[in-house]
């Protein structure tokens, strides 16, 4: 059970001072230089008012409250004036704070939005070999969580870090100016506190990581058992499941207790250190006052400043770890941005006016892994308008044909021609919009049925109705609550597998490609839907070059030619009758189906 469910990588540590990374991050910030400068200015205002307030209190005490030299009225008047200033500053601080929070969020969100858009766009432009190497879960983490990490750093650290720095330096300066000897004594505490918080930060990070992984483990087991509840009950494994869950739950529990203990030791320790500072001020400062080297107001101000002084130190380790994980995320994001698609585009891609739909493979060799070719010296010519079915056992290379035709991959050797133009010389988008691909899975946009059929194309209402009729999809649409305007996909109405297939056929009709590729669905569509699909297919295939990858031999009867593929080679071709007579692989595949019926009903088949 040593598995980190759902976590693809743990923070590997990047140096926080990685300059090249910072330069790229700043590149994204630069367009928002003005709001950032504004936020920095506001943070200076906030720091300044924070520092001024205790100072005003000390003035009020020394000049007016304890000053026996002034008359009582003057002292009250003076106190009132200080109070007015005080009020002015707190109002200023309030507004500065409010604006700063909103401004930072606004900027941060826009920077991250652009980064996310760029990354997403970049990912979609990468080629299939890339997606073959990188699991989708990892890529999604880049686009979501990694960006979120950077945003965290942006809003809660960069500006506040600057803020804290200004504040700490400011307070130190004031303390030294008020009484340098006492300030010096306090400085002795700084390294102790800093060491303490950094040490704590490291321990806390480990504990949090453990908590996260054990919770993820717990949740994934829970999810699994709930979705497989019937199986657990049927196989009488309830006790076993409960024991496993209890073990995981206790594991998580003991991690949370570790966290409580850790925080229980370190948080009070910091408090103790801060109180030691107070004790030092009283002991040493008190002595100074008694020796008449310091005023009582200064002592009170010292006490207030110290509270302000220790706060940023306490949060330092937390902030440091935010920066660290953000830098790790930034590195992963930019690494991804730097990956280049391997498919070379032509310098001046061709976009021929007309295309007949003829396709030719010429001596093509291709494999997904070096040294393990799937197709070897493969040649095949398909005439415009011809319907070709490809059959063969799993792994024969049927799907590879699609990958090469759609130019998801380029052949290692040999060429593929569309109407005598080599595929690599053609514009990629042009090529793909001339091919209609219908696969087992159909991607659904979270949008209306209409948008899902049109996919951004314009088409008149009547021709859309025609398309729906031809694709046998009209009946499905009529059954939907809002017809064409019904929302489907995430959060909308769910379509069945068969209905999604019909939708895919409607898409093809709207796009009207010259070449149609059917990667025949193997999912269980019930017989009636299958019949609908076949009627629709007939319409869709009419007048197009069609290549049917048949996993199930069911669409074969329409084919002008059947190719039998085995281990990347065409071992037989011809129409059904020819192939049956040949007594080869095709015959064997067919007989499998036949004998089954003979077993039940010897007289059944014709």
């Amino acid at each position, binding site marked *: 059970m040593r*598995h980190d469910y759902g976590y693809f990588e743990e923070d590997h540590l990047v140096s926080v001072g990685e300059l090249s990374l910072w330069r790229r991050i700043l590149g994204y910030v630069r367009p928002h230089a003005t709001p950032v400068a504004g936020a920095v200015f506001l943070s200076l205002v906030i720091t300044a008012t924070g520092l001024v307030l205790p100072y005003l209190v000390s003035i009020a005490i020394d000049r007016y409250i304890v000053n026996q030299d002034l008359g009582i009225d003057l002292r009250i008047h003076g*106190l009132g004036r200080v109070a007015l200033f005080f009020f002015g500053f707190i109002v200023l601080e309030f507004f500065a704070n409010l604006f700063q929070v909103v401004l930072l969020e606004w900027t941060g969100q826009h920077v991250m939005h652009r980064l996310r858009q760029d990354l997403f766009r970049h990912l979609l432009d990468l080629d299939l070999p890339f997606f073959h190497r990188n699991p989708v879960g990892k890529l999604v983490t880049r686009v979501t969580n990694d960006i979120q990490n950077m945003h965290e750093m942006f809003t809660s650290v960069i500006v506040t870090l600057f803020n804290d720095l200004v504040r700490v330096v400011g307070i130190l300066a004031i303390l030294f100016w008020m009484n340098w000897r006492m300030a010096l004594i306090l400085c002795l505490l700084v390294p102790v506190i800093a060491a303490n918080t950094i040490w704590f930060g490291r321990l806390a990070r480990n504990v949090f990581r453990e908590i996260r992984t054990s919770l993820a483990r717990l949740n994934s087991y*829970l999810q699994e058992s709930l979705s497989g509840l019937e199986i657990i009950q049927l196989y009488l494994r309830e006790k076993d499941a409960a024991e496993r869950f209890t073990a995981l739950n206790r594991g998580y529990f003991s991690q949370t207790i570790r966290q409580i203990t850790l925080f229980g030791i370190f948080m009070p320790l910091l408090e103790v250190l801060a*109180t030691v500072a107070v004790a030092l001020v009283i002991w040493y400062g008190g002595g100074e006052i008694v020796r008449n080297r310091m005023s009582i107001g200064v002592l009170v101000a010292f006490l207030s400043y110290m509270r302000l002084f220790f706060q940023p130190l306490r949060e330092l380790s937390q902030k440091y770890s935010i920066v660290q994980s953000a830098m790790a995320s930034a590195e992963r994001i930019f690494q991804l941005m730097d990956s280049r698609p391997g498919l070379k585009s032509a310098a001046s891609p061709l976009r021929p006016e007309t295309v007949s739909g003829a396709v030719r493979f010429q001596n093509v060799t291709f494999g997904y892994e070096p040294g393990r070719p799937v197709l070897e010296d493969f040649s095949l010519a398909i005439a415009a308008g011809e319907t070709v079915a490809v059959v063969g056992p799993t792994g024969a290379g049927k799907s590879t044909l699609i990958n090469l035709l759609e130019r998801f991959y380029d052949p290692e050797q040999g060429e593929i021609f569309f109407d005598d133009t080599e595929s690599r010389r053609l514009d990629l988008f042009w090529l*793909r*919009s001339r091919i209609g*691909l219908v696969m087992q*899975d159909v991607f659904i946009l979270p949008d209306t049925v209409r948008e899902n059929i049109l*996919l951004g194309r314009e088409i008149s209402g009547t021709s859309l109705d025609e398309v729906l009729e031809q694709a046998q999809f009209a009946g499905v649409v009529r059954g939907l609550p809002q017809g064409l305007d019904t929302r489907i996909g995430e959060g909308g109405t769910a379509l069945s597998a068969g209905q999604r297939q019909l939708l895919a056929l409607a*898409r093809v009709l709207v796009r009207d490609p010259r070449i149609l590729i059917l990667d025949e669905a193997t999912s269980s569509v019930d017989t009636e839907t299958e019949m609908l699909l076949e009627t629709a297919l007939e319409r869709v295939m009419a007048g197009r070059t069609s290549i049917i990858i048949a996993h199930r031999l069911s669409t074969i009867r329409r084919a002008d030619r059947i190719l039998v593929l085995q281990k990347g080679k065409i071992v037989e071709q011809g129409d059904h009758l020819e192939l049956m007579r040949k007594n080869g692989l095709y015959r064997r595949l067919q007989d499998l189906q036949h004998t089954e019926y003979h077993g039940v009903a010897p007289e059944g088949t014709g």
Partner: protein
Amino acid sequence: MAVGQISAGDTFREALGRLRFFARRYRGRLAAGFMALFAVDILQLAIPRVIKSAVDAIHNRSATPDDLFRFGVIIVLIAVGIGLFRLGWRYLLLGFSRLVERDLREELFKHALTLDKSVLQQRSVGEVMALSSNDLAAVQLACGMGLVAFADAVVISIAAIGFMIYINPLLTVAAVAPLPVLVLLTRLLSSRLHRHFQKVQEQFSRISEFARSSLSSVRLVKAYTQEGMQVSLFHRLGQGYIRENLRLALVQGILFPVAGLVANISLLSILYFGGRFTLAGEISMGDFVAFMSYLAMLTWPMMAFGWVANLFQRGATSMARIGELLRERPALCDNVSEAPAETGRVDRVALSALSFTYPGREIPALADISLQLSSGVCGVVGRTGSGKTTLCHLLARYYPVKNGEIFLNGVDVNQLSLAAVRGGISYVPQDVVLFSDTVAANIAMGKPDATAEEIEAAARTAVIHDEIVAMEQGYQTRIGERGVKLSGGQRQRIALARALILDRPVFILDDALSAVDMETEHAIIRSIAAYLRGKICLIVSHRLASLAEADTILVLDQGRIVARGGHDQLIRENVFYQTIYRHQTTVAAGGV
């Protein structure tokens, strides 16, 4: 949500009831924890008193260096005491909340294991997951930090105000007057904060989900040249995310600065009025400084009151939701008053006028099904929604049936224990659920002590052995998120092997080979024939080819058996059967 039907009072009463149970279970820990908490509070309140004496002594110039040193030492000693007691209450009280969380989660899971489909079909897996994560977290927060903050705030504020009144009642009123605003404000804004936070989370998961679905069907996106469209949809989602975040930031931007503002206004009134009182000699300089320290202590409890009220509210609502599931009783359970009957090895299954309607539906899913099954294969065909799967589910005891409808060896299933009935059935359902574990462990799920040979034999019969061996770690390969990704057909065959390893007298295959290709399916049908011998088998399929071995075939339509008999008979008599037969055979024969 169902919570709407329960009044707020009931919610709180129920939550309190459950909490009281845990309070009793861990009463020693709670008592010690609260004592430590109060000790911290008392010590904390003592520090300003010490500072006051010190400042007064310094101000009067009466303090000797020894006195000052003593003050310093006392302050540090108190601080160390505070630290120790704080560790104590954190460990005891926060630990309590984690114990509550742990115990509740365990109870929840064990309870869920006893529930049957008629209860659970009303809740999605996600809903139960949310109970275990979000709702339990809310409960934990309420009885951990919530309880602590509440007790702490009460003690501190009473004590601090007490001390302040002792120094000067009038000044206390002036200083404390703005603070109730803080309570109201945090109460108001923190619930809003929570709401906006949830919206941000929702939008975030929408973005993740969109990216996931778009990237996982990248082949189709490219084939349909939809890159631009996807990017612009993603942009729209991203803008929604910005909007939600800004709304959240606005609330945050108001809440925290306003809290600071209110606290500062209190400070201001101490400065002005306290200053005047000091001037007038009504309070000492030390009192003035101590007053400010007490005020600093009050700010946090005032914010805490508002925050805690929301925590409690959320915790109680969550507890009520959890309670709802815990109150659910399975519709199917063993009759405890009577000893269950015994059947021995099942060799006859009889259905007598079996009818079934799903809870909340009106049209029966099955009506008047009468059937005798003994050893041999019975095939079931029919349209989607004709009741094939319901029939399997009832046999596997997923749902309760009335008395006198299903009999095993002549004994009514309602008189048998659930375990006895289920222990006699291997059922391979349509939707495959495999567990994140090794292939071997998945196959041996129902028989954990199976030998490697048995596992391999089952895998061979399910025609998956060769593919397992070809995997990097063979039978020890892990399945699941971090393990190897299996095709639908492979998953179905592993699920089949999982059933085949059990030697149970009843075997049900519910369209369980739909994703397996034709040749492999044929090989499976041949290889399981020996296993099926002497067993009662029910095989549901869309493909008549899978029913080659069937002795009888049932045709279901709208929950009724509309025809039954051998293949030849059905070909002659049943239109539906003819249609699919003709369709599938002409396809197979290539349109000849």
